[in-house]
Every structure is written in structure tokens, then in C-alpha cells.
């Protein structure tokens, strides 16, 4: 993917360019010709060589956003995908800010949610302008002209003009505000499988990731340095001493400098920087909370459930309803920290010069990268150039680009281009984890087994407090609550508990721990759905009802949840006998505008406690489907990642810091543990929803419910490691 073309070379080519202006109230389509100081990084540009160049502002991390967003434009524009379309990664520009989120950020499964309609309109507007330009040229009514694969045709007179021939004339026309969109049956690309454009270059090793940026592939980086940073081993730890001379004596080491994040060693190669770091022999103090380990965290967060928290939501009188209920159920759940561990460790390359700052990085948040770099360099935002490469996975971690400021700081100080690499150990120990949670839920059922009350107390490490404390109002950090509750008018749509509960009470306690947390694929939809869907299973059992029936009964007005549940049940053969010794569990969840239901089949070895997952079935409703292939890939991949957290992953802490360091002590699911996965799409005409995170939330509860079904043991924490399972089986 050629990153960008320079403004100068761009201005030499005339043609039709359409972009948008994002306002707090939505967006407006613009023709670049109307904009005085126009910005080349707009969405679509048609040039006289008959090429259609599409600029994508979202980050590509394997979810297929370059392909899917381009398909939308190309389809509505009626462009020829194979012959005309070329796709470029856009720089940091306001035109790429999400109309939904207000920033150029690839998170919250919002790339399609935010851009589906604007991109369709941009493509359709371009098509309308080209048709109008042709009609004016031929002096015939527009209604007699038709756009077909990059050409406007007038069948009556058998004339045609290519988009390349028409683009200059079209660029003089006004952009229609509400262009006529195609009908679904007219779609040429949308809804049909399109191979991802990023795949061939990834397979051929031509794809450049952040860590691959060097003076061989970016000429401005001549003379670049490679830096690594000795980072504190415990939260809040400060260096007491270090051997700067020893590090500087290592061959290739150019500079040792202390920065707020630690002690940076800059060298002419990665290996020299790593050796220099080892030579530092830094002595650190004990940090903010030297007693903190896993037991400390779990004990504290369980105790938090008895402390008064912030009231998040109250409808009816849950306490009274539960006290008067025919059946009462109470359960407490724990979900520990899990790490992102993107395969490409965090990194950034920066080059600060007097009048500009360039950053090359695999990041999910160009807006914050720009703000951070501007803050350090004191350069105006338009002098900051963020060149986004391919991402070796994002998973949310790369949406908080704390890896950028350090590269900018060092480059500014040394006046040289610098790449800062986090080692795998840095990447794990200085991750911002999925926030750990404890939940205590009380539920009440009437005599018919209908839910009448739900009281939910949760403790969670605040996600926003370290980065944006103003986002916390009256003690509520909604990031902790997604899947259970959300702010009014949230851009995340259906992030609230979906069950119909007349008396509902939700309370949040923000755990007082120094552990840094941040969105991890699906954010807290994962831990919240786990607690909700396990508890629903417990309620169904208490009501003497089938878990599927109980869910349908308590979701009866929710058509989309009902449909995915019915589909998954049918496809998985719910209610039909399963092999002896196996268990089957079900769960559903809605988030980011989409719905999913999952059925998991597994068996538990009662001697070893080892769980073997045999099959996972998913039913998905995400509204219109743009590119079906990557959509299934996202659910498969999400399901596999969720299985990994359900069965294996837990970050270990010791002495006030992170003890987990690398893949030898952080188990991640491998090929032999991955079951068959079936993904079924439910045909839906609802608004388009997100897909990148939907594969996560309903898997862990379906696994836990299947373990109960197989063994009769309720295990109210994950991961379900063999020792946890064995202990539960023994105490059953």
C-alpha cells in the first residue's frame, strides 16, 4: 500500500475529488474543487487516467477495512474494481474522523457503523455528478444516461464516455446533498465475497508493519537510531541508580537518556540497544503498591462488593422485588486481567525536525497520535504527519498510542529519526490490560419463572481514570459497564443488558489499584456478558427451565436477540441428545449494533480437569453484510481468542508489578485446542452493526454453562484451567 502521495504531485492531477467535512452534528459531502486550501487526503479521487483512488482513514489490522470500505464507494460509484480502483491508506486528516466517534480512530467496531452511509453517499454523489457531466456533454436528459463499470453510457445514441474523460467536467458541478443510492438488488460488490486487498502483499512479505519501518523502505529515515527502554518493574517504581557508562560502552550505543517512561538506550541497531539496556543494571524502588499480587487483587475486588459504590441505574425496586420473589438466586463472579499480546510488539518511529514531525506507526488512533506529538514538539497539528502502516493486530491496545510520545521525545532530543521498540516483555508488562471485574448479582423469579428483579453490583478497575478522568461522572466509568449499561445516547448503541427486567439496579465500584487497563477487543462486553449470561443460566436452572427457553421468554420483545438464539439453537441441534460425557452451553449478547448467540459443545476430563471443546456454533445478525468473508473470519478469530481467555489466559502479578513476561508464561490457545467453528449469518435489514468484537462476549459464558451441563459444577471465574476445574469438581 503506497502510504500517501505528496500534495504537489496530487495537485498536478486534476479530476473529481470527494471528501467529507465532519461536524459534531454529522457530516457534509464536499467537492475538493470547492475547498480553497484543499486537502488531498479525501475519500475518493477520479483522475483523467480513468483511475479511482480511494483513501481509507481507518487502520487495517486484518479486519479487512481497506477492502470493505472501498467496496462501498466502488459499488455506489459503479467503478470497475479490477481495472480502476486503487486503495491508499490515508494520513491523519479531519476528513477521516468518524462521524460517530469524532476522531480518526479504529475502535468500537465503528468503521462500518460510522462510515457505511457516508461512503455510500460519497460514491453515489460521484456517480450522479459523472452522469450529469455526460448528459450535459451530450445535451440529453440525465435519465437516459447510465453509469456502468466506470463508463457513462447513452444507449439511445450508442455513445459512452469513461469516468476519466468525464472527471474534469464533473469536478465543476455541485455535490448532490442526497444522491440516490443503489437498491440492494443493484449492488455489484456489496454482499458478495471479495478477496481482501491486503492479503497478497502480506503473503508476499511486501506489507510494511510499524516495526518494519527503516531507512531501507522510508528514505527520510537515513541515519535512524534504534531505541529500547528500561521500564519500571512495578507500578510507580522510580529508578534509583543505573550504570550509564556501561551502557554507553556497548558497541553501537549512541546515547543513553532518561525520559518519564524509563531509561532509553539509543543505538545503531536493535541488538546493540538491547545489549546496552542489559548493561544499565537499573535499580528501582519498590513502587506504589509492592504487596500487590493476584491474590491481593482478587481479595480486594471481592471486598469492594461490600463497599458502597456509584448508582448507575435504577428502575423499579429491585431489592423489594427480589425479597418478595418466589425464587431467589445470588452468585459472585471473577474475571481477571488478560493481556492484548498483539503479535507485533508496540513500537513507533519518529523524526522531529524544526518545521515538521513525522511518525510512522501501527496505531488505531491517529487523532491521539497527532495530539501527543503536537504536545511534545509544540508544532501545530498540521505539521504532524502520522503515517499509519499495517498493524500486527490491534485488539484495542493500539488505540492508546503511549508508544508514540517516547519516540517523539527521543527524536526531538537527538534531532535524528528514532525507532522505539517494545520488547515482548515490555509489551506484556506495560500492557494496559482488559480490566479485571468482580460481580455480585441477585435475581428474583416469580412463580412462573419470569424474571422480576435483578440487582447487580460490580467492581472494576477504571479504564478512563488514568487517561481522561473527566470522562468519569459521579463515580461512573461507562467503559467498565458496556454490555451491562451505557451512557444515554451512546455511540455504541446496544451496550445495555438486553433482558426485560421490571426491577433493575446496577451499582459500580471503581477498584483502587494501580493496574493500568484499557479496552481489549469488545471492551468490558466480555467480562459483563460472562457474568450476565452465566447468571441467566443459573436463573434458568432455578426456574426449572431450559436455558434457551428461559432466554427467549425473557427477551420476547427483542426480535434480533430472539432470531440469533433460534438460529444458533437450530444449527447446533439444541435439545437433541449429545454424546455421553459431553456438555452443551448457550449464551447470547448484543453490542456495537449487532447480535450474536453461541452454542459450545465440550467434555471435561474428570481426572485431570482438562476441558476439550469439540464444537462452537455462532449465529450473527449485523444488519447488511458488505464483505461476507472477513465477517466470518472476524467471528472465527474472535471465538478462538475468547476460548483462549475462557480456558487459559490470566495475567500474573507479583511485588506490585506484572510477573507475566512472555509467551512461555502467558498461555495462548494453539491449533490443537481449536475446535470446529460454524458461523451462520442471519439475514437482516436492520441498521449496519459492528463485527470485529462480536466474536468475543458470548463464548466464555457458553463454555462455563457447558461445563455446568457436563459436570454439574458451577465455576464462577475464568480461566477454566484444569486446577480450577478439578477443585470445583472435588468441592461439588
Amino acid at each position, binding site marked *: 500500500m503506497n502510504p500517501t502521495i505528496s500534495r504537489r504531485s496530487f495537485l498536478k492531477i486534476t479530476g473529481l475529488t470527494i471528501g467529507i467535512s465532519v461536524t459534531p452534528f454529522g457530516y457534509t459531502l464536499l467537492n475538493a474543487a470547492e475547498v480553497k486550501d484543499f486537502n488531498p487526503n479525501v475519500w475518493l479521487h477520479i483522475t483523467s487516467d480513468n483511475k479511482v483512488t480511494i483513501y481509507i482513514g481507518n487502520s487495517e*489490522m*486484518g*479486519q479487512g477495512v481497506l477492502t470493505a470500505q472501498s467496496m462501498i464507494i466502488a459499488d455506489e460509484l459503479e467503478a470497475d474494481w479490477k481495472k480502476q480502483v486503487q486503495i491508499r491508506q490515508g494520513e491523519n486528516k479531519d476528513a477521516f474522523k468518524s462521524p460517530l466517534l469524532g476522531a480518526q480512530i479504529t475502535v468500537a467496531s465503528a468503521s462500518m457503523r460510522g462510515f457505511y452511509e457516508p461512503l455510500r453517499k460519497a460514491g453515489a454523489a460521484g456517480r450522479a455528478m459523472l452522469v450529469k457531466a455526460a448528459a450535459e456533454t451530450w445535451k440529453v436528459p440525465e435519465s437516459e444516461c447510465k453509469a456502468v463499470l466506470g463508463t457513462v453510457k447513452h444507449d439511445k445514441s450508442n455513445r459512452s464516455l469513461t469516468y476519466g474523460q468525464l472527471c474534469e467536467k464533473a469536478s465543476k458541478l455541485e455535490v448532490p446533498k442526497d444522491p440516490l443510492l443503489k437498491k440492494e438488488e443493484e449492488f455489484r460488490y456489496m454482499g458478495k465475497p471479495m*478477496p*481482501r486487498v*491486503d*492479503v*497478497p502483499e*502480506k*503473503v*508476499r*512479505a511486501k*506489507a*510494511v*508493519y510499524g*516495526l*518494519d519501518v*527503516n531507512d*531501507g*523502505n522510508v528514505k527520510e529515515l537515513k541515519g535512524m537510531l*534504534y531505541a529500547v527502554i528500561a521500564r519500571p518493574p512495578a507500578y510507580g517504581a522510580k529508578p534509583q541508580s543505573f550504570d550509564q557508562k556501561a551502557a554507553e560502552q556497548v*558497541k553501537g550505543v549512541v546515547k543513553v537518556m532518561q525520559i518519564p517512561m524509563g531509561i532509553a538506550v539509543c543505538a545503531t*541497531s*536493535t*541488538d546493540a540497544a538491547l545489549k546496552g539496556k542489559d548493561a544499565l543494571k537499573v535499580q528501582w524502588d519498590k513502587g506504589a503498591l509492592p504487596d500487590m499480587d493476584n491474590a491481593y487483587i482478587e481479595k480486594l475486588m471481592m471486598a469492594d462488593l461490600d463497599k458502597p459504590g456509584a448508582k448507575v441505574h435504577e428502575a423499579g425496586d429491585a431489592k423489594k422485588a427480589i425479597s418478595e420473589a418466589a425464587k431467589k438466586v445470588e452468585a459472585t463472579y471473577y474475571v481477571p486481567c488478560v493481556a492484548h*499480546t*498483539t*503479535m*507485533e*510488539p508496540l513500537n513507533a518511529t519518529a523524526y522531529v525536525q524544526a518545521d515538521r514531525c513525522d511518525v510512522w506507526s501501527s496505531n488505531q488512533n491517529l487523532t491521539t497520535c497527532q495530539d501527543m506529538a503536537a504536545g511534545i514538539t509544540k508544532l501545530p497539528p498540521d505539521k504532524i504527519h502520522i503515517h499509519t502502516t*499495517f*498493524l*500486527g*493486530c*490491534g*485488539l484495542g491496545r493500539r488505540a492508546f498510542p503511549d508508544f508514540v510520545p517516547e519516540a517523539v521525545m527521543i527524536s526531538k532530543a537527538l534531532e535524528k529519526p528514532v525507532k522505539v*521498540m517494545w*520488547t*515482548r516483555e515490555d509489551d506484556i508488562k506495560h500492557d494496559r490490560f482488559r480490566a479485571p471485574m468482580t460481580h455480585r448479582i441477585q435475581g428474583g423469579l416469580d412463580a412462573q419463572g419470569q424474571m422480576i428483579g435483578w440487582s447487580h453490583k460490580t467492581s472494576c478497575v477504571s479504564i478512563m481514570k488514568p487517561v481522561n478522568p473527566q470522562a468519569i461522572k459521579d463515580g461512573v466509568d461507562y467503559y467498565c459497564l458496556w454490555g451491562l449499561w451505557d451512557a444515554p445516547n451512546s455511540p455504541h448503541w446496544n451496550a445495555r443488558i438486553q433482558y426485560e427486567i421490571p426491577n433493575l439496579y446496577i451499582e459500580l465500584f471503581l477498584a483502587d489499584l494501580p493496574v493500568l487497563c484499557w479496552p481489549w477487543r469488545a471492551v468490558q462486553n466480555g467480562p459483563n456478558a460472562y457474568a450476565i449470561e452465566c447468571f441467566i443460566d443459573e436463573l434458568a436452572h432455578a426456574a426449572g427451565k431450559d436455558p434457551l427457553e428461559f432466554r427467549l421468554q425473557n427477551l420476547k420483545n427483542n426480535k434480533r436477540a430472539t432470531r440469533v438464539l433460534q438460529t444458533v439453537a437450530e444449527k447446533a441441534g439444541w435439545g437433541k441428545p449429545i454424546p455421553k460425557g459431553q456438555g452443551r452451553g448457550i449464551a447470547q449478547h448484543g453490542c456495537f449494533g449487532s447480535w450474536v448467540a453461541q452454542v459450545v459443545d465440550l467434555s471435561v476430563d474428570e481426572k485431570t480437569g482438562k476441558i476439550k471443546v469439540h464444537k462452537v456454533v455462532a449465529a450473527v445478525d449485523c444488519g447488511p453484510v458488505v464483505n461476507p*468473508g*472477513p465477517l466470518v*473470519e472476524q467471528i*472465527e*478469530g*474472535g*471465538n*478462538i*481468542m475468547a476460548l*483462549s481467555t475462557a480456558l487459559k489466559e490470566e495475567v500474573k502479578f507479583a511485588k506490585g508489578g506484572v510477573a507475566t513476561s*512472555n*509467551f*512461555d508464561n502467558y498461555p*495462548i*490457545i*494453539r*491449533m*490443537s485446542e*481449536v475446535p*470446529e*467453528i460454524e458461523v451462520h449469518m442471519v439475514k437482516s435489514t436492520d441498521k449496519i452493526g459492528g463485527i470485529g468484537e462480536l466474536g468475543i462476549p458470548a463464548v466464555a459464558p457458553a463454555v462455563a454453562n457447558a461445563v455446568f451441563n457436563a459436570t454439574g459444577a458451577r465455576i464462577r471465574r475464568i480461566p477454566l484451567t484444569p486446577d480450577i476445574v478439578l477443585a470445583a469438581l472435588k468441592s461439588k
Partner: protein
Amino acid sequence: MISLNVNGKNYAVDVSDDVPLLWVLRDYLKLTGTKYSCGIGECGSCTVHINGKAERSCAISVKEAKGKKITTIEGLPENHPVKKAWIQEQVPQCGYCQPGVMMQVAAFLSEKPAPSADQIISKMDDVICRCGTYLRMKKGIQTAVQMTRKEGK
């Protein structure tokens, strides 16, 4: 100076003996298709061929690779069945681990052109893909096997 033969070309690199081959490939020879991920030989993202065998370049020193025939992902032919199969089956998501995975598969299939499903799993159980493309990898391997078989005929 250490002389290396990589993808059929000879290089002389001014680097000490103990540097992992990975950094020499990436920083000195600018062959960045070989990826750093764990640095301890646990994940397989850095796999290359040394004398035809799959080795983890993060866990092998440049001295050990001296005088041997090193092949990186850039040296695996574009028409290699594994590369073709990986595109056909749309195996990569983020794609970061895949060069190493493909190198491991290519070496495996050259030793065992028709592996059973169990043999595939046991051979590939030491790679990590955080995107969770394992099912696609299995499919990709099977497709590569079929492609090789057809080409052989």
C-alpha cells in the same frame, strides 16, 4: 565480518557472533519479512530455513548460521504452493505471524508432502496467531498439499 548466504546472495556483515540471526536479517540486510514477536522461540513469527530446515531466527545466533544456506520469506518463490494457498484460502488477518508460519509449513511439506490431519496439528502446535487464524492455516496447508500433488502430476 561474518559472511552469510541469504536467499542465494552472499553478504558480509560487521556484527558480533552472538547477535541473533533475526536482527541481522531485519536491521542489517533489511529483510523485514522475518518478524520479531517473542524473541525466545515460542511463537514462530521469525521462522526461516537453514539448510532447508525450519529454524527460529530469534533463538539462533548469526555465528550458527554462518556458511549455511539461509532462506527467508522473501526467498520463498512467489509461486510456491504455500504462498498460493495462503492467498487462495485468505489465511492472514493481521498477517504478522504468517511469514514465519508459512516458512514452517513450507519446510514441513518438503519433508512430508502428504501429512495427515493429526500430523499437521502436532507440527503446527508451536506457533501462535493472536488473530486466531488456525482453522484457515489448516485449510491452507491442505490446499498447498493438493496444489503440490497436482503440480507433480
